[in-house]
C-alpha cells in the first residue's frame, strides 16, 4: 500500500526507471538516479521514489454512505417540489393550494413549535408560524425562504430529464434573486399576511432552500462553460500544436541552414509561417483571456483577474521560450549559396579522403621502396649533409606546408610518418620509431629536392621577368612609392615576412588550424633542427647575400601551390619588397645597390599591380604546368590544387597561415617595429652564414665556404658593425640557422647580378646554380 515504486520488485536487477539502465546495486541505482535524472522532470507516471499512502478507498467508503443519504434527501425534495408545481397554481384558490401542499408533506403541528427553530424567536400573533412546503417544518417569516416557479421548474425538469431544454442557466440565478426580491416587496405591499397567496412561489425553510440551491448550482455547472475555459482550451490546443510543429521546424531549419537538401526551403517556410501564426494566435488568445470581463459592471473577483493574468503570463513565457528557439531560415539566395558551399565542402572532403588514401597507399609503397634507394646515392647525400639538407628542406617544406600542406602528397606522407612516429613513440616501439624517422628523413630529403628544383625553375623565369620589369621600374621614384604605400605595406609587409618565414608560421599559426601540421613541425624540429624556433621571426632578413636563396625558394613554393587571386600581390612582393624595405631604412649602402631592385617591389600595387600581376600569374600557370613534372608524386592530386586555388576552405591551414593570421597579427607591428627587426635579421643572417660556413667546412666543401664567407661580409657592412660577426660564435645555433639555408653554390651566385646584396634575382641564380651542381 505504501510504495508505488521500486522497479526492482518487478524486474530483475536494479533498473533505472528512466533510462532502464541496469545498475549493479541499489545504492548505485539511487546515486545514478540522483545524478543523472535529478535535473529532469520526473514525470515517470505513477512512479515516484518516495513513500505515499492513499486514503481514497477509505474516503470513498465513508462518502458513499453519506452520499446515499444526501441524494435521497435531495431527491425527496425534488419530488415534492414537482408535486407542488404540477398543478396550475395561479388559477387555483388559496385553500385548494394549501390542501394540496399539505398533502405533499405532513405539516408539523403549530403547538409543537413555540419558537422558531432557526432564529429562536417566540411565535406570537405578530410573529406567525410558517410551514415549509417541502419538509413541513415551521419557521418564522424572517427565516422563511421562497422558491420561484421558474427555479422549481428548472430543478424538477433537470432531474426529470436532463436532455430537455429549459430556462437558460444564465437567466436562472437572476430569476431566483429577482423573484425573491420581488416577493419581499410584494409581501410588504400586501397588507395581510393571511391573504398572501402563493401563486408564483413556494415557501420553504432555509435548509430545503439551501439544498435545492446547491442542486441548482450543480445543474448550472454541468451545462455552463465559462468563456475563459473555452478560450483556455483553444490556447492549450495551440500550445500543443507548437510543441508538435516547432521541433519539426527546427529540424528543417537546421538542415537547411547547413545547406542540406533533405527538406525543401518552401516547405520550411510554410511551416514557419504556420508556427508563427499559431504563436500569434496564442498571443491573441491569452490577451483575450487577460481582458475577459474587465468591462463588466461588477468587476470580476480579484482572483479571477489574477487567474487571467497568470494565464497570460504563462502564455507569454511559453511564446518567449519557444520562439527564441526558432532559428531563421536562409533566403533563397543564401540557401543556394549554402548549398553550394556544402557541396563544395563535401567534394573537398571526398577529395581529401581520396588524397589521404592515395598518399597512404603511396606511403606504403614508398616504405618498401625507400630502403632499396637508400643504398644508392641518396644515402650518401644524406650522410654527407644531412643536417644541411634538412635545413634547406625547411624552407620549401614549410613553404609548401604553409600554403597547402594537405595537397602535396609528399608532405602528406611526411605528415603521416610523423604521426606514425608519434604513435610508435607513444607505444614505446623504439625500433619502429627509428625506421620511421629514417623514412621521414628520406622523404624530407626528397621533398627538399623537389622544392629546390621547383624553386630553380621558377626563379629562372622570375629572373627573366624581372629583368624586363626592372627597366620600367627604374623610372619610378621608389621612395615616393614607398611612402605612399607605407600603410598598405605595413599590413602586408609582415604578412610577407610571415608567409616566408614558415618556421615561425608553423608553430604559431598552423597550430590552431590543424594538429597534424604541428606534429609535423615538431617532428621535423626533433628530427633535424631542435634550435629551429630560436631563429624564428628574423630569418627572412633579406640583407645578406645568401638571403635571396632562401627567400626565393619561397616563391616557387608559393608559386606552385598558391592561389593566384588572393595572394598574388603578396607573392609578388615576397621576394623583393620585403628585403628592400628593410634595407632601405637600415643601410644606405645596401639601399643604393638595391635601389633598382627595390623599385620593383615597391612600385605600388596601385599602378603596377597589373603589370606585376600578370607576369606572375603567367608564372603561376607555368609553374602549375611545370610543377607537375617536378612533383611527379603530385600528379594524383592536381584537383586539390586547382580547388584550393579557387576556394579556400575555411579552417584550412593554408588560409590561416598565409592570409588571416599574419595580417591580423602583424599589421600593428608595422613600420615602427621594423628597424630593430632588421638589425636582428641581419644578425641572424650573419649567424646563418656563419653556420653555413661551418657546416660547409665540415663537409669539406671549401668552395662554398669561400663564397659564403664573402656573402657574410656582404651582409656585415649593412650592420656597420664588424664585431657582430665576432659575436656570433659557432655555438649551438648553427644547425638551426643552417636549416634555413639551402647549400648554394657561390660560384653561380656571383654570376647573378644581384648577388652583392639580398637581391631577388640572385636567389634563383643561386638556386639554379646549385641544381647544376
Amino acid at each position, binding site marked *: *500500500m*505504501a*510504495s508505488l*515504486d*521500486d522497479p*526492482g*520488485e518487478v524486474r530483475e536487477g536494479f533498473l533505472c526507471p528512466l533510462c532502464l539502465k541496469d545498475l549493479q546495486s*541499489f*545504492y548505485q541505482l*539511487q*546515486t545514478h538516479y*540522483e545524478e543523472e535524472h*535529478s535535473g529532469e*522532470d*520526473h*514525470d515517470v*507516471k505513477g512512479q*515516484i*521514489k*518516495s*513513500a*505515499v*499512502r*492513499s*486514503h*481514497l478507498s*477509505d*474516503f*470513498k*467508503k*465513508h*462518502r458513499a*454512505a*453519506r*452520499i446515499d443519504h*444526501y441524494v435521497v434527501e435531495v431527491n425527496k425534495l425534488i419530488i415534492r417540489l414537482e408535486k407542488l408545481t404540477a398543478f396550475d397554481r395561479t388559477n387555483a384558490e388559496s385553500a385548494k393550494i394549501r390542501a394540496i401542499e399539505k398533502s405533499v408533506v405532513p405539516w408539523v403541528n403549530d403547538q409543537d413549535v413555540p419558537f422558531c427553530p432557526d432564529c429562536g424567536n417566540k411565535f406570537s400573533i405578530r410573529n406567525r408560524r410558517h410551514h415549509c412546503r417541502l419538509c413541513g417544518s415551521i419557521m418564522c417569516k424572517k427565516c422563511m425562504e421562497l422558491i420561484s416557479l421558474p427555479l422549481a421548474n428548472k430543478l424538477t425538469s433537470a432531474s426529470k430529464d436532463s436532455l430537455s431544454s429549459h430556462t437558460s442557466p444564465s437567466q436562472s440565478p437572476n430569476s431566483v434573486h429577482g423573484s425573491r426580491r420581488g416577493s419581499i416587496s410584494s409581501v410588504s405591499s400586501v397588507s395581510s399576511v393571511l391573504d398572501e397567496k402563493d401563486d408564483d412561489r413556494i415557501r420553504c425553510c432555509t435548509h430545503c432552500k439551501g439544498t435545492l440551491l*446547491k442542486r441548482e448550482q*450543480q445543474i448550472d*455547472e454541468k451545462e455552463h*462553460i*465559462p468563456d*475563459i*475555459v473555452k478560450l*483556455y482550451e483553444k490556447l*492549450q490546443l495551440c500550445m500543443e500544436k507548437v510543441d508538435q510543429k516547432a521541433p519539426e521546424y527546427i529540424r528543417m531549419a537546421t538542415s537547411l541552414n547547413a545547406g542540406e537538401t533533405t527538406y525543401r526551403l518552401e516547405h520550411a517556410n510554410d511551416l514557419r509561417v504556420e508556427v508563427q501564426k499559431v504563436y500569434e494566435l496564442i498571443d491573441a488568445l491569452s490577451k483575450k483571456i487577460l481582458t475577459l470581463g474587465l468591462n463588466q459592471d461588477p468587476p470580476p*473577483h*480579484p*482572483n*479571477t483577474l*489574477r*487567474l487571467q493574468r*497568470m*494565464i497570460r*503570463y*504563462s502564455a507569454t*513565457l*511559453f511564446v518567449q521560450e519557444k520562439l527564441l528557439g526558432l532559428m531563421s531560415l536562409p533566403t533563397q539566395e543564401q540557401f543556394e549559396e549554402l548549398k553550394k558551399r556544402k557541396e563544395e565542402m563535401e567534394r573537398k572532403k571526398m577529395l581529401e579522403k581520396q588524397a589521404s588514401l592515395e598518399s597512404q597507399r603511396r606511403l606504403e609503397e614508398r616504405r618498401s621502396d625507400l630502403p632499396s634507394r637508400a643504398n644508392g646515392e641518396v644515402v650518401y647525400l644524406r650522410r654527407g649533409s644531412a643536417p644541411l639538407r634538412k635545413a634547406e628542406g625547411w624552407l620549401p617544406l614549410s613553404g609548401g606546408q604553409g600554403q597547402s600542406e594537405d595537397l602535396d602528397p609528399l608532405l602528406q606522407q611526411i605528415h603521416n610518418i610523423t604521426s606514425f612516429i608519434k604513435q610508435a613513440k607513444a607505444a614505446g616501439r623504439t625500433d619502429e620509431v627509428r625506421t620511421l624517422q629514417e623514412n621521414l628523413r628520406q622523404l624530407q630529403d626528397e621533398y627538399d629536392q623537389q622544392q629546390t628544383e621547383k624553386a630553380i625553375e621558377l626563379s629562372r623565369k622570375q629572373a627573366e621577368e624581372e629583368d624586363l620589369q626592372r627597366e620600367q621600374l627604374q623610372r619610378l621614384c621608389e621612395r615616393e612609392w614607398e611612402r605612399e604605400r607605407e600603410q598598405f605595406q605595413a599590413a602586408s609587409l609582415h604578412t610577407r615576412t610571415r608567409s616566408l618565414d614558415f618556421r615561425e608560421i608553423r608553430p604559431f599559426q598552423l597550430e590552431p588550424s590543424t594538429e597534424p601540421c604541428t606534429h609535423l613541425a615538431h617532428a621535423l624540429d626533433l628530427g633535424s633542427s631542435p634550435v629551429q624556433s630560436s631563429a624564428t621571426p628574423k630569418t627572412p632578413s633579406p640583407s645578406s647575400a645568401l638571403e635571396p636563396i632562401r627567400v626565393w625558394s619561397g616563391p616557387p613554393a608559393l608559386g606552385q601551390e598558391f592561389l593566384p587571386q588572393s595572394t598574388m600581390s603578396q607573392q609578388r612582393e615576397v621576394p623583393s619588397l620585403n628585403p628592400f624595405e628593410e634595407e632601405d631604412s637600415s643601410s644606405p649602402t645596401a639601399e643604393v645597390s638595391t635601389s633598382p631592385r627595390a623599385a620593383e617591389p615597391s612600385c605600388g600595387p596601385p599602378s603596377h599591380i597589373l603589370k606585376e600581376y600578370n607576369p606572375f600569374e603567367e608564372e603561376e600557370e607555368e609553374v602549375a604546368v611545370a610543377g607537375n613534372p617536378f612533383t611527379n608524386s603530385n600528379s594524383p592530386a592536381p584537383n586539390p590544387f586547382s580547388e584550393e586555388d579557387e576556394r579556400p576552405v575555411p579552417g584550412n591551414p593554408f588560409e590561416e597561415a598565409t592570409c588571416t593570421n599574419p595580417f591580423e597579427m602583424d599589421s600593428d607591428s608595422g613600420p615602427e617595429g621594423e628597424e630593430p627587426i632588421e638589425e636582428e635579421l641581419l644578425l641572424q643572417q650573419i649567424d646563418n652564414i656563419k653556420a653555413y660556413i661551418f657546416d660547409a667546412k665540415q663537409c669539406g666543401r671549401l668552395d662554398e665556404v669561400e663564397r659564403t664567407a664573402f656573402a657574410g661580409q656582404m651582409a656585415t657592412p649593412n650592420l656597420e658593425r664588424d664585431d657582430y660577426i665576432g659575436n656570433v660564435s659557432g655555438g649551438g645555433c648553427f644547425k638551426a640557422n643552417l636549416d634555413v639555408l639551402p647549400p648554394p653554390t657561390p660560384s653561380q651566385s656571383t654570376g647573378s647580378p644581384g648577388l652583392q646584396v639580398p637581391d631577388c634575382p640572385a636567389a634563383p641564380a643561386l638556386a639554379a646554380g646549385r641544381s647544376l651542381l
Partner: protein
Amino acid sequence: MNVVLAVKQYISKMIEDSGPGMKVLLMDKETTGIVSMVYTQSEILQKEVYLFERIDSANREVMKHLKAICFLRPTKENVDYLIQELRRPKYSIYFIYFSNVISKSDVKSLAEADEQEVVAEVQEFYGDYIAVNPHLFSLNILGCCQGRNWDPAQLSRTTQGLTALLLSLKKCPMIRYQLSSEAAKRLAECVKQVITKEYELFEFRRTEVPPLLLILDRCDDAITPLLNQWTYQAMVHELLGINNNRIDLSRVPGISKDLREVVLSAENDEFYANNMYLNFAEIGSNIKNLMEDFQKKKPKEQQKLESIADMKNVKRLLQNPKVTECDAARLVMLYALHYERHSSNSLPGLMMDLRNKGVSEKYRKLVSAVVEYGGKRVRGSDLFSPKDAVAITKQFLKGLKGIENVYTQHQPFLHETLDHLIKGKLKENLYPYLGPSTLRDRPQDIIVFVIGGATYEEALTVYNLNRTTPGVRIVLGGTTVHNTKSFLEEVLSSGLHGRSKESSQVTSRSASRR
C-alpha cells in the same frame, strides 16, 4: 538521498495526477513554504497551476472551472477548513494530499463533508519539511525547547517532520542519539514510536546496511553558530538572513522594488548553485555589495579568532569602538565557552568590560545563557578535550593555520562527529543506539538531525563529506537553520538565562567592583 528532489517529486506527482486543465494549489502556511522551496512560479505555471491559495483565506471566489490541488499539513484546523470547503466546493474537483499521516477519523469526517463528490484523491505525501539544499532540511522551528526539554507542540512537529523525511527518502533507520541531551533522547523515542506504529509505511526494501538516524543537540556545539560562517550561503544568511531561500532586502536603503525580496534557490539560480558552498572570499568579487559588508566584518572576526587565546586581546578588542554590541557579546560568549571551567577565568572582568562598553543587558544576559545552553556541564562530548588553555585554544583554532584558505578557520564539531560515525568510531557511551540492535558495519546512509538548529557551515561540512567519502550519503537537518542572531534568539527563547551559577557570580562580582 536528495531532499529537494524528494519534495519536488511529490509536488510534481500531485500536479500530474490532476490531469490537464487550469489548476489552483491550495496550501496552508507551512506547505506554502515547502512548495516554494522546490518550485518556482514560472516552473509551476508551466504545469497549468495558475493560482496559489491559502486554505484559510476567506476571500476565495467560486471558480468551478479550476481543479484544486490541496497540499496541507494534517492539522486539526486544516481538516476543519477542508470540511467547510468540501461542503461548499469552490472548485470543480479536489485532489487532496496531506503532508503527513492523517487519522482515519479525519478521513471519515472529510468524506462525510464531500456530499457533492468533488474529491478525486486523498493521499499522504510526506513532504513535511523544508528542503533547503539537496542534503539540508529544516523545520523552521525557532525555539524548540523550554529549558532543557521539548516544547510539546514542537516535539510533535519535529517528530512529524523527521518521520516524513524518513518516509520521503524511504528510510527505516536505526537511531542513535546524543546521550547528554534529554531532548535528543525524547525525539529519538518519539520517532521510534511512529515507526513502530506505522510499521506498514516503513516497510521498505531492506538494504544491506540499514540507514542511520543520528539525533544531536545544538548545545553540544554552541560555538559554530556563534562564529561567522564563510561560505556564500552562510554569509548571506549571516548578514541578510535567509528564510525559505528568500532574502528580505527591504531594509537595504535604496533597493529597487523588485529586489525587496530575493529568492536564492540552487534549483533555479545557477550562480547560487555553483557558489553556495564556495568560500565567500572566492566569490567576493562577484557580489560587490555583499563583499563590502563582508570586508567590514572580516578584520575583526579574524582578529577575534586569532586572539581569543589571549585575554588581553579580547579586552583590547572589546574596547575597540568599532566592534558592535552584538559582536562584542559574541566574543565574550566564545571566551566564556572556552574557559568556562578554567581557574584563571576572567569572565567577570570581561563582563564588566561589556557593561562599560554599553552593551545592553539583553546581550550580557545572553552570555551566561549561552554558557548555560552550551557549556561544559551540558556537553556530553569533549568539545575541548585538553584541559589547559593553550591546548584548548590550539584545538579551537585547529585549521586556522596551515590551511590553504585563511577564511575557513573553523571546522564545526559536527565534522568530527560524522567523521567518527563514518569510520565506525563514534563512541556508544556518548551516542547510544535506541533499542537493542546496533550497526555492525559502517553506516552508509546517514541522517543527522540537530535539535536547536543546524548551520550552513555544517551543511558545508556535510556537503564536503558527501563529496569526499564514497558510499556515504549524509543528509543534515535541524529544527531550523541558524545564523548568529537566530541562534541567540533560540538560546533566549529556551529561557535558560540567569539560572546558572556563573551568571549570578558574574553579576554579583561586577556589582561589587563597581
